[in-house]
């Protein structure tokens, strides 16, 4: 896996942000993900739709390395990361949020974000306590501002409202220099106001940052995504522009019409 810098730069320059080839994930006899092939271009914004149990979260887990895929290849920015552990993929510009918040509930908002910022920079093993003026501390403060949590910066996460915890999830994914972010149902459980705040955060993100968003709410999904992938029983069965997907009869039948949610 010793790729020279030149090779890597070349790969980064020409490759897609994400390339999945025949990715399959089994849980015992259950195929949660079947032969998924998918390409995301740099800066692209994609929605993944599908009913509960379709395999959307499993897809994310296989991309980040939370779980390894049973077979198939995963390429990130042109580099084959199929056998890379999660932290190696994250350090290459991949980020994610979790459907069920995974936060450090005993820590303050600032400490959570600081951990995230530190995780994708040097000095993860530093024994020197950070200073307020430290650059990383500053970028943590800025991130908190970006997700509208400045008022609760020094509050313990366990004391935050649900919507605020979801926003913090997003802040953790924005740390460092993300190039591709996976959002797992970020709008679930949010109030209408919080939803529009979320849409605003997503649409205001710098153009070079691509993302994949899993979203049940069609209105949110279609406002923040340029392309849509439809999943069912572990397969991606349709891909296209939001208008095409909305008017597709198969999609209407499987997802939009009957078994919503």
């Amino acid at each position, binding site marked *: 896996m010793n790729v020279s810098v030149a090779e890597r730069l070349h790969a980064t320059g020409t490759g897609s942000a994400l390339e999945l080839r025949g990715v399959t994930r089994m849980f015992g006899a259950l195929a949660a993900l079947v032969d998924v092939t998918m390409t995301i271009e740099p800066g692209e914004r994609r929605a993944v739709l599908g009913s509960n149990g379709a395999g959307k979260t499993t897809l994310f887990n296989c991309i980040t390395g939370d779980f390894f895929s049973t077979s198939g290849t995963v390429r990130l920015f042109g580099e084959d990361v199929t056998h890379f552990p999660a932290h190696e993929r994250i350090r290459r510009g991949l980020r994610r949020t979790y459907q069920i918040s995974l936060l450090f509930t005993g820590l303050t908002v600032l400490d959570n974000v600081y951990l995230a910022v530190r995780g994708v920079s040097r000095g993860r093993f530093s024994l020197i306590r950070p*200073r307020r003026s430290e650059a990383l501390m500053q970028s943590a403060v800025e991130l908190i501002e970006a997700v509208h949590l400045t008022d609760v910066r020094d509050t313990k996460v366990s004391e935050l409202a649900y919507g605020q915890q979801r926003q913090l999830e997003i802040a953790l994914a924005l740390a460092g220099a993300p190039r591709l972010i996976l959002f797992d149902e970020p709008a679930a459980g949010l109030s209408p106001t919080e939803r529009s705040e979320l849409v605003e955060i997503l649409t205001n993100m710098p153009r070079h940052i691509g993302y994949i968003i899993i979203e049940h709410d069609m209105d949110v999904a279609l406002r923040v995504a340029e392309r849509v992938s439809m999943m069912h029983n572990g397969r991606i069965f349709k891909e296209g522009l939001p208008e095409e997907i909305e008017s597709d009869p198969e999609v209407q039948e499987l997802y939009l019409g009957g078994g919503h949610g």
Partner: protein
Amino acid sequence: MAVRDHADVSATSGGIRTHTNYLGWLESVHPAYWLLAILLLFMPAFAGSFWLFQVWGWAFILGTIALSLMFLAGYGGMVSLVQMTIAGLAGYMVAILGASGVSGISMGWPQWVAVPIAIVVAAIFGTLVGALAVRTRGIYTIMITLAVAAGFFYLTRQNYTIFNGYTGFGGIQPPHLFGVNMRQPVHFYYLSLACAVLSFLAVVYVSRSPFGLALQGIRDNPRRMAALGYNVTAHRIAAYTFASVIAAVGGILLTWQNAQIAPASVGIGPVIDILIIAIVGGIGHPIGAFIGAFIYVILRLFSPDMLMALGLPGDRFRTLIGLGFLLIVFWSPDGVLGLWQQLKERMRDNAGFTGLGGAGER
């Protein structure tokens, strides 16, 4: 540094502490610590040799070794039974590299050479054990580290070329600092106190550094930490390295105190004793290791007399220690620190929240 018993990140670490204001830091030290510091500093003025050397010296040493376990278990969520073994290895190294009564093996190197090498060897050994153990969780970590501890014990007992087998090493040269024999009770008291305090401060400081905070994040949520870019395995192994250095310091002091090291020092008994000390004291805070060690030493030294006064065989001290262990764990899973916390909360409830917490409370 208020004493706390909760074992989540915020309580054990206080989160990220930025150090902009040293006076502020001084003010934040709980008054009880000032009192304790003064008491310990002037102890030799009123305590005799037995108390200085046997009681306090031993408590500081065992506390330091238990502190290394507290660091791994409290901050890293890894219960290692190999800490006494790492300490013992450092002790053996001092005996082998330095001067002892076994002139056929001991190399007689000066202490300023032998001690650093002993610490490095112990740290390397601890790191290797860590690399083996961190891939397991919970009961399996305990089993693997216990297996290593048992293996080392039998190795020292059966190997005569390096470890001098059953007899081990006696007549180990006492520590010398600036030409002074540090094994004299007052000197040894201050030496072990200094090592204990430095280890304690190092653990408290590191717990709030990026490394320490990441370790606690990994304890609470390894999956999220990996998704933030942290190499979970490497952090856990590094924690073993750090803990090994502390254990090694304790082990060298222990060898100096006894002027000997033998397989019995690293047997399963002492290995389990360190676990008991850490748990009885409470693994939620570094001070718990020393509280546990003090209780253990008092029981060890005085229970034979107490038992005999009751007409029981004096060598049953382990029964007594075991019973004490059961009682404390039964009443408070967080050890003595937890009991103290419960007591404080009850007092606060009775006082109707009138602020009995004390000025040092944050």
